[in-house]
Every structure is written in structure tokens, then in C-alpha cells.
């Protein structure tokens, strides 16, 4: 079976080269036969990779410990579910997952467009197959998951199998961690589809809105998966790593954020191109940048050029990635410059008080955010190059820049809906802005009255209030306008209004989700924590909570040994809950892990970590964090997913011509 998988993987290399070349030929000659051949190549590449992946899964499930990857990432007693999921636990497997997703997408795109876009498709397949070629080189020649274990016996290398594997990293044995890689990878890989179409448009000169329309849903889906993947990563860090937070501006975290930032900018600026035929070059650049940043992100994670707790160590992929990235960048930028003249804007911006200008500022802020995060992430490399000192910037630097930018962007989500396309009349401006601003101002006074005195927090809450107001008004007013014409009741009108323009109202739902998440982030301004060494019966307090140690227990299973704490939590004399933080030591991988316990309400999370034990074993060290509003982040994320799905639903068409945005 290992041979089967290995040979199939090897065959990916020639098959993808063939597909790339045939697709290019199809584009140049415009011959139907060549295009069909390229499509079949795409399907074949998908088939071969899928079978290869399935054989790796088979090896994992049957615990074939002669294969290095199986031995490093699983062990006999690992539950079946985790054996399957070990597919992406280690570097080689996760890289194969990347490639698999690429081939799935090239197959889908080829199939979706089998009756249309004949001019673009050859080059689309060319770009996607070309990417597959690169990744197949990595999978086959550098990081092959089917490598067998070898023993050095002096003169020869002999294949052998270990008795039992090292098991899955315990940190990965958690639901959020399980789906975080595939979800994130789907987001990363999805960036190749708009990119391929953009390149195809540049090569063929078909620079109209066609490529944008075809890729609209792909762009939105990719964006959604990236967002979900990023949040899942944060959730996992929060629940599994035990440091009390969910985002540390770590290089690998930043790597996933970068393409998301440019993708968000694109989703907005593309609307300007649709309405005014402006920003054509900029949109192309954004699509190209998003793809390059996604590949760059995976390069950062796997090359070891910046050190990170998440990063796989230097795996020899660095040079290959560098070559690929440089080639892709030069090629895309070159093409873009070549077609510059054909990408002139059709119209100009008429007024600064317009929706266009709002989107332009939105894009500027996203661009600055991207540059800032990139700069901060690469600073150790840059500083070493220029000063000889390797300097790392930490969360305070990132927060210093990103909090103001984030709040400015949040403000724009509230201002945007109040602006009309082209130009907003001054009388209406006063009316639209007046009420929400007044309301926010009063809200600020209320907050001050409650004793909130952190400036940024107040700003954040005030802007959140403002945005929520404007968005809710948009829904209500819109329903009202519809009711005048249709006579429906309010809720029906609301539903019909949204269904007839899912992009706009889905977008508003997403903005509301962002507001919720920002409120969650703002909770960080009010965090508190404490640390205590306790034996059975000891007590301690944190703010208005008091804690009593009921028991300290030890246990052992087949997989791990553990020490746990029964901690009773009370507020104002009443017992609220009993919490059980735990520390485990996994035998197979010789790794410890903390199982935090979290008491989570809308108002705050009480987050408890068992950090260690005293020398005599009689006492344990426990840390308690009070994190306000964390739940808002997760709830906001769910709403964001819902909003994204809603935005993808096709607009409802009525018998008379429906409206479009």
C-alpha cells in the first residue's frame, strides 16, 4: 500500500507538468481538443492525488510503522479518529493535504467551466496546474510522507519498522485543532482560483468584468474559510496552550492574517470596479497579492526563517519556495505592467462624501495593516540584514498600530452605509449622521457613568454602538421602503429585502459579526489574573470570586498520566461551579499538556490553569485569569460564517426586474 501511494504521488509530477503544458498550448492555439485534454489532465491530477491521500490514510489507520510519517505521528493506542486526522498532524502530511486541496479545486474549476469561459480556461488551468507542479515537487522529492524508516547499520541502510509510534502531539488532540488546518488550507488554496482567472484575464486581454463575476463566489468562500481558520487557530490556542489568550502576533498567526487582510480589501474594492470601472489595476494587484501572501504564509511556517512556537523547523523547503515565490511575483507583476494601458479607469471619483471614497479609505487602511503586519513579522530578518542584530517586535508594537487601524475600519463599516454612490447630498448627511452620533455620545456618557475609564475601550464601545445603530437602521429602513411598494408585513419585507440582495445584507450581517468580535477584543483591556500555591482546603480570591481547593487527584490511562485539581468557585458566598483543571503527561510522545478549565459566560471567562506542583507533591500551583467578553469573539465568528453563507445565496428574482447592488 505504501508503494501504491508513493507511486501515485510520483505520478502527480509528470501528470501536472503535462496538464500545465497542454493548457498553455490550448490557450495559444485555441484548439478545442487541447482544452479538453487540459481539462482531463486536471481531473486526472485530482484522481491521482486523492488515491495517494487515501493510501496514506490507510497506512495511518493500519498503523504501518515502517513508514516514518506514521511512526512519528501515531501510536497503537491512538483512537481511530485521531489516526485519520494525523494526516495533517505532521509537516509532510499537511503539505500533501495542501496539494490535495489544490487538485480538488482545479478539478472543480475545470468542471464548472466546461461550457464557458473558453478563452480564459486554458490559462486558468495553466496557472493552477503550474502551482500543482511546484507542490508536487515538494511532496515527491523533498517532503514525501511515504518515506520509510531506515536504520544505519554501518555499511548499509536497512528498512525497519518500530514497535510503536510516537503518537499524536497531545496539543493536537482537540476538536478545534482537528479542523483548523483543513479549514485554513482551504482558505489558503482558494486564493489560487481568483489569481488564476486574473492571470488568464491579463494574458488574454479579456479584462472586462467576466473574470470577476466567475470568481466572485470563490473569493467570498476563500475569505470565509480564511476567517474561520484564523478564528479556529485562536480558539485552539486559547483552549489548549494555556496562556490565557487567543492571539499573540506570532509569525505563523500573522502569516494567516496577511492574505485575509488583502482579501477583505479586495471584496470591497471590487464593488468600485463594478459600479464605476475604477481601480482595475488595484483589484488585479490585490488578487495577485492575496495568492502570493498565501504561498508566502505557508513558506514562513515551513522554512524556519522566523522562529515561532507554531513553526515546523527548517525542512529544506525554504529555497524551493523562494524560487517559486520570486518567479510567480515577477511573472504576475510583469503581466500587470504589460497590460497597464488596458486597465484604465472608466470613470473618476466625483466626491469625497461618497461610498466610493469610503471604500478607498477602507482599502488604504487594509493596505497599511498588511504592510505593518508584514513588517513586524519579518523584522527579525530585516533587522539582522541591516544592523546585524536580530530584533523581534512583540505584541505591544503590533497592538499599537493595529488597534487604531482596526477601530478606524470599524468606524468605516458604520459610515459606509450612510453614504450614497457618487455623492451624498449634504442635507441628508446631517440627518443620517446626526442621530447615531448623538446616540453614541450618550452611550459614552453611560459607560463613563459605570466607571469605565480605559480610553481605547470607550472608543471601541462607542464605535461599536454607532455601527450597530447604522446597520440596524439600514435593515429597518430598507424593509420600510419595500413595504411601501409591496404592502408586505414587516418581517416578510425584511426577509424579501435581504433575499433580493444577499450580497449587501449578508455583508451587513458580517459587519455586525465583526462588531461583536471587536467587543470581544476590547474585553482584553479589563483582564485580570492571579496565581496561588494551594493544598487541599486552601482558598484564594480574584476580584469578586473566591476559590477553594476541594481535592488534588492523580490518575492514569493507557495514553497518559494526569494530575487534576477540584476547585470550587464562589461569588458573594454562593457556589457558582466546580472546575477541574488538569495536567497530563503523554507516554508515547513524552509530552505534557495542560487541560484548562473555563467557566464561560457572556460577561467573562474564568480561565483556570494548573501550572505545576510543589516539590513534595502536596501543593499545586494554579493560575486564574478573568477574561471579559471572550465569548463575544466566538459568537461573532459564528455570525460571520452565517453572514458569508447568506451572501453567497443567489438573489431572489421576482417577476418584475429585481434590484441589484
Amino acid at each position: 500500500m505504501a508503494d501504491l501511494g508513493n507511486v501515485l504521488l510520483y505520478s502527480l509530477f509528470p501528470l501536472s507538468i503535462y496538464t500545465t503544458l497542454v493548457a498553455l498550448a490550448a490557450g495559444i492555439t485555441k484548439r478545442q481538443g487541447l482544452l479538453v485534454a487540459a481539462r482531463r489532465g486536471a481531473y486526472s491530477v485530482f484522481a491521482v492525488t486523492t488515491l495517494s491521500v487515501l493510501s496514506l490514510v490507510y497506512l495511518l489507520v493500519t498503523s504501518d510503522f515502517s513508514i516514518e510519517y506514521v511512526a512519528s505521528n501515531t501510536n497503537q493506542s491512538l483512537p481511530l479518529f485521531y489516526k485519520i486526522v494525523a494526516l495533517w498532524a505532521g509537516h509532510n502530511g499537511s503539505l500533501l493535504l495542501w496539494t490535495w486541496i489544490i487538485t480538488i479545486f482545479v478539478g472543480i474549476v475545470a468542471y464548472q467551466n466546461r461550457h464557458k469561459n473558453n478563452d480564459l480556461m486554458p490559462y486558468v488551468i495553466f496557472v493552477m496546474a503550474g502551482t500543482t507542479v511546484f507542490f508536487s515537487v515538494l511532496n515527491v522529492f523533498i517532503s514525501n510522507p511515504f518515506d520509510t524508516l531506515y536504520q544505519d547499520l554501518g555499511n548499509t541502510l536497512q528498512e525497519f519498522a518500530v514497535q510503536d509510534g510516537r503518537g499524536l502531539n497531545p496539543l493536537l488532540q482537540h476538536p478545534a485543532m482537528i479542523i483548523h488546518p483543513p479549514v485554513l488550507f482551504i482558505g489558503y488554496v482558494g486564493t489560487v482560483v481568483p489569481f488564476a482567472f486574473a492571470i488568464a484575464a491579463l494574458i488574454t486581454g479579456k479584462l472586462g468584468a467576466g473574470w470577476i463575476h466567475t470568481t466572485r463566489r470563490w473569493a467570498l468562500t476563500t475569505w470565509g474559510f480564511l476567517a474561520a481558520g484564523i478564528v479556529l487557530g485562536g480558539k485552539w490556542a486559547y483552549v489548549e496552550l494555556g496562556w490565557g489568550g487567543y492571539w499573540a502576533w506570532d509569525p505563523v498567526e500573522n502569516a494567516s492574517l496577511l492574505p485575509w487582510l488583502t482579501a477583505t480589501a479586495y471584496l470591497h474594492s471590487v464593488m468600485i470596479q463594478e459600479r464605476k470601472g475604477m481601480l482595475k489595476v488595484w483589484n488585479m494587484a490585490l488578487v495577485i497579492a492575496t495568492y502570493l501572501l498565501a504561498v508566502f504564509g505557508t513558506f514562513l511556517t515551513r522554512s524556519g526563517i522566523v522562529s515561532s512556537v507554531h513553526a515546523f523547523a527548517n525542512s529544506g523547503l525554504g529555497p524551493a519556495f523562494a524560487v517559486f515565490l520570486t518567479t510567480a511575483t515577477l511573472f504576475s507583476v510583469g503581466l500587470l505592467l504589460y497590460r497597464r494601458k488596458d486597465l484604465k479607469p472608466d470613470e473618476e471619483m466625483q466626491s469625497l462624501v461618497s461610498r466610493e471614497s469610503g471604500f478607498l479609505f477602507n482599502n488604504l487602511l487594509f493596505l497599511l495593516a498588511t504592510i505593518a503586519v508584514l513588517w513586524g513579522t519579518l523584522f527579525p530578518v530585516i533587522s539582522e540584514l541591516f544592523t546585524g542584530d536580530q530584533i523581534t517586535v512583540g505584541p505591544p508594537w503590533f497592538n499599537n498600530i493595529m488597534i487604531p487601524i482596526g477601530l478606524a475600519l470599524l468606524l468605516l463599516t458604520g459610515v459606509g452605509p450612510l453614504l450614497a454612490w457618487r455623492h451624498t447630498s449634504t442635507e441628508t448627511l446631517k440627518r443620517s449622521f446626526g442621530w447615531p452620533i448623538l446616540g453614541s455620545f450618550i452611550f459614552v456618557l453611560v459607560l463613563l457613568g459605570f466607571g469605565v475609564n480605559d480610553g481605547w475601550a470607550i472608543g471601541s464601545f462607542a464605535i461599536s454602538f454607532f455601527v450597530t445603530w447604522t446597520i440596524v437602521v439600514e435593515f429597518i429602513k430598507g424593509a420600510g421602503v419595500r413595504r411601501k411598494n409591496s404592502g408586505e408585513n414587516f418581517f416578510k419585507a425584511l426577509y424579501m429585502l435581504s433575499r433580493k440582495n444577499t450580497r449587501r445584507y449578508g455583508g451587513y450581517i458580517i459587519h455586525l459579526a465583526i462588531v461583536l468580535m471587536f467587543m470581544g477584543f476590547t474585553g482584553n483591556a479589563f483582564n485580570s489574573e492571579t496565581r496561588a500555591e494551594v493544598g487541599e482546603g486552601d482558598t484564594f480570591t480574584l476580584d469578586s470570586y473566591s476559590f477553594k481547593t476541594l481535592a488534588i487527584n492523580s490518575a492514569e490511562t493507557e495514553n497518559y498520566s494526569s494530575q487534576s485539581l477540584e476547585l470550587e468557585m464562589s461569588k458573594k458566598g454562593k457556589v457558582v461551579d466546580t472546575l477541574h483543571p488538569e495536567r497530563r503527561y503523554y507516554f508515547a510522545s513524552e509530552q505534557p499538556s495542560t487541560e484548562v478549565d473555563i467557566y464561560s459566560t457572556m460577561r467573562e471567562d474564568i480561565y483556570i490553569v494548573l501550572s505545576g506542583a510543589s516539590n513534595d507533591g502536596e501543593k499545586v500551583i494554579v493560575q486564574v485569569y478573568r477574561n471579559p467578553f471572550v465569548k463575544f469573539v466566538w459568537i461573532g465568528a459564528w455570525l460571520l460564517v452565517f453572514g458569508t453563507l447568506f451572501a453567497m445565496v443567489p438573489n431572489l428574482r421576482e417577476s418584475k426586474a429585481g434590484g441589484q447592488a
Partner: protein
Amino acid sequence: MNNRIKFIIGSVVIILAVIVLAVQGMQEDTSMSYSKTVSELKLLGDRARAMNLKISGDLKKGSIVRNNMDLDFVITEGNSELQIHYIGSDPIPDTFNNEMDAEVVVSGKLVDGGVFNAERIQAKCASKYEADYSSN
């Protein structure tokens, strides 16, 4: 053209604001840390006291001393040694013990007496390719 200019002015203002934030962020002590090896640290001499540092080296086997919440150990690199005193509040992995071959990165500051007060420890087992970590 009038609108163009207004827009450009607005953008320049925003860009300048962000640059100011970036530079200001760099000047704050808490944000920046210098990465050095143990021997490089020795070369810095007294200058090192003022800097936030990330020192990398290998764990000296047998040097770990634990005392309830206190942790002391020694890291080496080349011919140099550095005494580490852990003052952070995050849990230390159990694998951080006297038997392992570990590459260690400590973040913190150098204090009087040549001891390094570490707020964070990252320990990577030399045989595996993924890092163990005490904290994030």
C-alpha cells in the same frame, strides 16, 4: 482634480499617522527584544542590561534546580555559560528536565551578578522537529 487632491491629502495624513504609531511602538521598551546567543551576550558587556533579550543556547544537563515556583538552570553555547533564573508565571513543561538534550530560548533581562531573569522559556527537544513550549 479637486477631489483627487483632497483624497491624496487624506491618505497622506493617514499614512503619516500609521508611521508615527510604528516608530513610537519601536521606542517602547516592552516591544522590542534582541536575539543573541550566549557568547554574543558576553560580548555585549554592560550594554546588555538595558535591553530586552532573547538568548538561545543548549541546556546544560543536570543544571536544573526546581524549588516550588522557582526554577534555575544553566545554558551553554560554545564555551560560554549563562545562569538563568526563571521569574515568569507560565507553566514549565515536564519535559524540561535534567535528562533531555534541549535547545532553549529564554526571553527576559540580564541583571546584576550576571544572572539572566527569564520571563519566558521555549524549549525544543533536539530530537524532534516541533518545539515544546512553556508559554506563548
